[in-house]
């Protein structure tokens, strides 16, 4: 079957009432959490993740993808109307979005943001449709050393998820590895780090870890911050023709930059949005308008953000490499459902992959429909007091952590991780490398042990096989590229916000 017939069967499955409902529900919930000031896509997925665990894999991943996209869309609302970026990827949107809101053009900024996001998101999914299967076709050539090379490539992402300090990033990554080692060893099933305590035998549950690190810590960090609600009324979100004409080239350029850089494993939206914004400013005939409410300053980074988010699905689904923290959580979701992202996913689970890809098209349309007419409702929801929101999130997180394995031990783990996440986040220790290493650590171990067993313990096996050598060399090159990009983004974030980078 060719790509188009696969996609057609994917659409047939994605448009069933259940899957459509899950896409709608995911988009609604994601937008709802994303629109709340200070909550970004990672926290949104973490909070809502446990709700999806009772569903079968396809509707669950459709819902998670909807939450991811929805939270991305929702994040721009607070960036534009309140000057509060939920994640670093929304910082450039604040630069011109907020001045537009102050000039009474907040609705237009939101409209352009939604249209740009829809355009870029859809183009990204089109590319995913045709590019990911090509990448996955290399699957049959992969053995344990090649998969090990792939895992090494995945770990270059740590550099871009480390924030301002590589030492901090690697320290967190090894902490994540350490936590992933708890349980039964993969070779002999001998207990490791369990100290003869029964509950530790089954290891640390991924969802309990995510809920604690991102959801519980988020609530307590939120208690410290003064929360603000959007009080202004949004009248017209539909841009005029002149606005569209001014924004369209910026949308195109933002999409291009976001998509092509997003293909690089380790290039998160936080990096590409600044590149898109700076490119737009440099190309503009009136760069002095930027920072004062230029519509291109909203269109370009928002398009880049969504193009990168969509492009991130290509390394995620085809290679099993997440480019950003929310995608790392999504990767965890796939693993929870017994699906191993990577080259074989397209061959072993084609129905699943194509249904999810089709649902991404559907999700983009749903979000455009939801975002333009319902913006007033989202704005109203930001007025819910944190005194209500915080306890509800905590209760959801608590019961969610319990419900995965019906285990009070998991709840205890999530509470401990909540305290740990709170401490680490307050002192700017990046959590994403920890999560990434926790998820990929067991795979890295498996492929390393299999490869070394094949070679009788010789590390040369990784350098004697073409693909694994290419992947390891590629990893080294990407690491250098990531470091340069992180340095650039770090400088730009500091210039704009006087804060350290937290991608």
């Amino acid at each position, binding site marked *: 079957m060719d790509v188009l017939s696969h996609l057609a069967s994917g659409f047939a499955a994605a448009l069933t009432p259940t899957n459509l409902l899950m896409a709608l529900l995911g988009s609604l919930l994601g937008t709802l959490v994303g629109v709340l000031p200070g909550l970004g896509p990672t926290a949104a997925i973490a909070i809502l993740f446990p709700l999806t665990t009772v569903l079968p894999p396809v509707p669950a991943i459709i819902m998670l993808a909807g939450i991811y996209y929805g939270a991305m869309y929702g994040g721009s609302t607070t960036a534009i109307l309140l000057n509060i970026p939920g994640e670093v990827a929304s910082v450039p949107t604040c630069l011109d979005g907020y001045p537009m809101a102050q000039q009474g053009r907040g609705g237009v900024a939101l409209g352009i943001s939604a249209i740009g996001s829809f355009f870029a998101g859809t183009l990204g999914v089109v590319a995913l449709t045709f590019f990911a299967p090509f990448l996955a076709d290399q699957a049959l050539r992969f053995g344990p050393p090649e998969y090990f090379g792939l895992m090494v490539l995945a770990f270059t992402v740590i550099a871009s998820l480390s924030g301002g300090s590589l030492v901090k990033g690697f320290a967190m990554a090894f902490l994540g590895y350490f936590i992933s080692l708890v349980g039964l*060893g993969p070779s002999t099933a001998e207990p490791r780090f369990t100290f003869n305590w029964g509950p530790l035998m089954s290891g640390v549950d991924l969802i309990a870890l995510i809920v604690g690190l991102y959801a519980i810590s988020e609530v307590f960090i939120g208690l410290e911050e003064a929360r603000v609600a959007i009080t202004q009324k949004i009248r017209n979100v539909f841009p005029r023709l002149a606005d569209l004409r001014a924004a369209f080239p910026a949308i195109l350029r933002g999409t291009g930059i976001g998509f092509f850089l997003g293909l690089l494993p380790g290039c998160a939206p936080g990096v590409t949005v600044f590149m898109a914004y700076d490119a737009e400013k440099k190309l503009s005939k009136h760069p002095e308008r930027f920072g004062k409410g230029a519509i291109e300053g909203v269109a370009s980074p928002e398009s880049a953000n969504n193009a990168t988010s969509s492009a991130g699905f290509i390394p995620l689904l085809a290679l099993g490499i997440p480019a950003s923290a929310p995608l790392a959580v999504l990767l965890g979701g796939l693993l929870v459902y017994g699906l191993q992202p990577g080259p074989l996913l397209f061959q072993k689970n084609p129905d699943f992959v194509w249904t999810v890809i089709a649902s991404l098209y559907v999700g983009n349309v749903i979000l455009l429909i939801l975002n333009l007419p319902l913006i007033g409702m989202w704005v109203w929801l930001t007025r819910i007091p944190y005194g209500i929101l915080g306890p509800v999130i905590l209760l959801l997180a608590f019961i969610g952590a319990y419900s995965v394995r019906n285990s009070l031990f998991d709840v205890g783990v999530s509470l401990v991780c909540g305290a740990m996440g709170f401490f680490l986040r307050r002192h700017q220790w990046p959590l994403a490398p920890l999560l990434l290493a926790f998820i990929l650590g067991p795979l890295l171990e498996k492929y390393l042990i299999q490869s070394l067993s094949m070679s009788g313990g010789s590390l040369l096996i990784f350098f004697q096989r073409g693909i694994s050598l290419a992947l390891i060399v590629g990893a080294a090159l990407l690491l250098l590229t990531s470091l340069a990009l992180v340095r650039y983004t770090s400088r730009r974030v500091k210039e704009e916000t006087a804060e350290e980078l937290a991608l």
Partner: protein
Amino acid sequence: MPDPNRVVGGTLVLLGILSLWEGRRLYALRTEMVAGAVVGDDTFPLIVGVAMLLLGASILFVARLPQVKVARPYGEPRMRMILGAGVLAAYWVILPYLGYTGSTALASTGLFRAMGGYRWPLALLFGGVTTGLLYLLFRVWLLQPLPTGLLGL
């Protein structure tokens, strides 16, 4: 308050030592159980142990990490955080005894009171509504088996 970077560095050193110790135990077990195997369950604990030890030591003695100035929470927010964490910990303790309904009603009321600062009648109302909604979501809709406690509720 101790330097947070030193806290993380020290923790890494301790965990690194623990990992090496566990790796050594597993290595002895492997050489005893699986003759001729060059790698096994001990390989990664040993690698991770060495890396954590080196990273921890470098954070403690060599690396000059940027000092992040974080104001300690004080006043009302601090009280809300402490009380909120306390209620959450208490919820974890009482859940197996009181079951989902009783413990969630108590914990949610406590959280609304502690974190939201609502008066008791309002906190009770919010707690009751939230307990009911979560019950509908998890038990009725998602069919999750929630703890019933000693009273079977």
